[in-house]
């Protein structure tokens, strides 16, 4: 990401770590580096917010699917056959 005050490589290095940052999987030093950069770079901050929102939406859309009414019966019959 190119913009005044930051070089492309620094932003790209952050881009690669962004999921680990969201998942709190970075060590303290790397986390502070990312936070410092995000505060200073509006483009990376925007990038972070869209990715964080993507993760939130993905997690929130994971509802239960309605079970087909015949599934339990099929499973019961299959296991009875396997048990014989």
């Amino acid at each position, binding site marked *: 990401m190119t913009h005044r005050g930051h070089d*492309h490589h620094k932003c790209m290095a952050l881009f690669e770590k962004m999921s680990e940052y969201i998942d709190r999987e970075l060590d303290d030093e790397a986390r502070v580096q990312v936070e410092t950069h995000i505060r200073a770079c509006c*483009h990376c901050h925007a990038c972070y917010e869209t990715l964080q929102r*993507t993760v939130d939406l993905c997690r929130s859309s*994971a509802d239960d699917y309605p079970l087909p009414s015949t599934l339990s019966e*099929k499973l*019961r019959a299959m296991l009875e056959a396997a048990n014989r």
Partner: protein
Amino acid sequence: MTRQEIMNGKKTVRDEDFELIQAINDGRTDLFQELVEKYQQKIYNFGMRMCGESRDAEDLVQETFLNIFRYLKGFRYETRFKNWMFRVATTTCLKAKRKPKHAPERELSLEEFMPGEGEDLPDQAPDWAQRPLDQLLNEELAAHIKNAIIDLPKPYRMVMVLRDQEGFSTEETAQMLDISVSNAKVRLHRARLFLREKLKGYFDHDA
């Protein structure tokens, strides 16, 4: 409640299913139905998230429970039963010949999601990334997200489903898929970037 013990020099995970599984393995095979009833919804959800079609998801549930029934005696309590069950489900899913219509098997490269040097970039997040989640997520968007996940190549889809939808940790996901933790992280990041592009497209189209 899950706790770990060392039994005969080996790590043993005592979770909520420990006694039930011991009973089944000691000959009470009639109790297997309890496991099925407890977990069929979870495996069906996983099947729908991976296949997108009810028929394929039903097949996955049946094949998974049949494999669990066959191989339960080999379960060594080294992980929670639920994790082992998902390992069986992911293996069953990976071996399935069926392929969803819109899932090309290809590698996702980081470069395809990276902005190029000199590219004009937004200096603030779009409206959809800032609005409260409950105002944003509706049935149409949820369906769009599900379809976008189905469009992911299978290895990426599987990591995203296990991590962001089933709620497993990176380590657990890596273990289930027999891949390294760093590989699981790479796949997850690219899957999320893929989904983000799909969401951008959805909201840009909507705007």
